[in-house]
């Protein structure tokens, strides 16, 4: 406990965790809505779930888990001073993020092509619960996708700093925090995946 304005790695990490809590609660609001509407429309939700492409969902889950692995390994690498490897691992994470977004793109465009999007005629005509399901699906995955992009940008920026040596074995809190953020993105998806794709 000191009043100095010197570097406080633990303080920075504490701040990051606090911020992650807010992200958790943000998605928490959506999960709250999901829970309520699942209770009200179990059948419509099951019907909606079967229309989602579980193979793409599973693939994306695996991709995100892998990206998380490489982000975690990047932290280990930087702690060990293996800067080249750190950059490569971060690159891996960002690559995974890109794959994730590409798959997401195909998924969304397929659904939209079938006339399933918020406010579409198809959904207006269908059962009420189904429209709720898909709106929640689009909003949840949409905001999650936004987080994927922000996270990828963040990690890219950090990667540049690793290369320039600004982030190194003695000063890697930035990378640690970036990785924390990335893991949160993964965490959210761990819940989105079964709730939307597998509730059959």
């Amino acid at each position: 406990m000191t009043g100095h304005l010197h570097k406080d790695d633990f303080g920075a990490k504490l701040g990051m965790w606090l911020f992650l809590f807010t992200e958790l609660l943000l998605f928490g609001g959506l999960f709250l809505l999901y829970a309520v509407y699942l209770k009200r429309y179990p059948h419509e939700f099951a019907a909606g779930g079967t229309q989602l492409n579980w193979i793409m969902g599973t693939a994306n889950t695996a991709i995100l888990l892998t990206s998380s692995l490489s982000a975690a390994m990047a932290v280990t690498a930087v702690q060990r001073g293996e800067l080249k490897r750190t950059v490569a691992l971060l690159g891996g994470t960002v690559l995974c993020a890109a794959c994730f977004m590409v798959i997401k793109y195909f998924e969304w465009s397929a659904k939209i092509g079938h006339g399933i999007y918020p406010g579409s005629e198809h959904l207006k005509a269908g059962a009420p619960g189904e429209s709720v399901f898909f709106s929640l699906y689009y909003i949840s995955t949409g905001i999650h996708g936004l987080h994927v992009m922000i996270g990828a940008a963040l990690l890219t920026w950090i990667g540049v700093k690793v290369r320039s040596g600004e982030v190194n074995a003695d000063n890697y809190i930035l990378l640690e925090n970036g990785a924390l953020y990335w893991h949160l993105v993964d965490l959210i998806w761990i819940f989105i995946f079964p709730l939307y794709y597998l509730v059959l």
Partner: protein
Amino acid sequence: MASNAPVHHATGSSFWNDTGKTGITSWIFSTDHKRIGFLYFYSTFGFFLVGVLLGLLLRIELMAPGRTIMGPQTYNALFTVHGVVMIFLFIIPGIPGAFGNLVMPIQIGARDVAFPRLNLLSWWLYIIGAVIVLTSLFSGGGAPDTGWTFYVPFSSRTGTNVSLAVFGVFIVGFSSILTGVNFVTTIHRLRTEGMSWGRIPLFTWSLYATAWVQILATPILAITLVLVMAERIIGAGLFDPTRGGDPVMYQHLFWIYSHPAVYIMILPAMGIISDIIPVFSRKPIFGYKMIAFSSVAIAAAGSLVWGHHMFTSGMSDTAVMVFSFLTFVVAIPSAIKVFNWVSTLYKGSISLEAPMLFALSFILLFSIGGLSGLILGAAATDIHVHDTHFVVGHFHYVMFGGTAFAFFAAMHYWLPKFYGRRYAEKPAVVAWALMFSGFNILYFTMQVLGMQGMPRRYYDYLPEFANLNLVATIGSWILAAGLVIMLVNLFRGLWWGVPFEGNPWGGASLEWSVPTPPPTENFIEEPVVTHGPYDFNGVER
């Protein structure tokens, strides 16, 4: 002008000039917590004046039944903007942003907050959000007319510019979250040597509790606002009953944030009062631990009671019971505080200077507001007064009589410290007296009107309510007169008044041990704390 131009640094070098930088950029890009504190102070206070002006217009319209000065659409827009400005642009960021930033780091012996640049970003986000809110008034379909609660389905249908306003509030919410993150980290990490949790001044304790509410509740508001935008822009239909949505779920989400938010508003105010009363009684605060604990208890229990805004909404009766019960639980820690404040006066040596007058009237006004909250918390009685002017009276008592009066107390108590000059005492007391009486005439009358059944958000009313509405409007003018006198006197004093040096109030917490005004990094030497914040032994006055 040159001779009596503002010379803030009556005693030489201070944060006003010691960095050698001047001009607007030395403020809006500064990471010094005191400069950011002043940015917040002037911007939130500016919005307060805007809000107050709108409130005054509302009262003029309600002076007599029928159309007085505006049509219904204008009136609806006005109370919406009045509510949004007061809540999101003044009262939530106000005390933490202004006085939290100014005082809290010094109180714990730190040179700045944990993340100074994030702090600056918070202010920028706040300003950007505020500008977006203001833009929404003059663009698109015009000023939003939904009330500050943005209830669906009305808010998803109205042609006014709700989406943009909601987006602005979203940004402001983000700023609030960052302030919360910053303050919790600061209080955990940057306490100086000897500043144990049991020696933290109660103002800082209250900010700590507040910051947690900001962190844990504000994200729910953020997602709620995103959903309102989704309803309007992509037609998500999540709250649209014709497509399976449930409008009452919107209310849940909204109040999950907005009830805890009322404690974001009041807790820092209570902290200010807990700091001022001991100083002007020259006695340690009574029950330090209970007051600190009750701040945390209010923050915790306050997160569980949101349903009391929805007793008539068609929510289940079981939920009515649970939320009514929890509402009463949260009244207890508030009662603890009130009793402890009053006991602090016992056998003290009380000086009735302006900060103390505001602090004492806070206790009364907050008690009236809080006790009327008990009427609202009981299921049977809330049904009658819900959505009437009784509720309007209730929340003005707690928000204006509570938080804003505490804000005024803090202005008289701390601002001289940062300016090195002070206001004149007599006019301050006169202003206080006018405000106190005008306030009660205005809002007590509103509560009576509510008991008689006058609904809120009514542009026009039945003739039977006419007399009391006129009384209330007259009260608002008395209040306004007091406010103007207070402001003129205060700012005249701060800019051109007599010097305020050393520790004239005789405070014992750390902010009174640094030079007046403080230098940029507050402490020349890192302080070591050896006694509590209310230990007045050896403090001269």
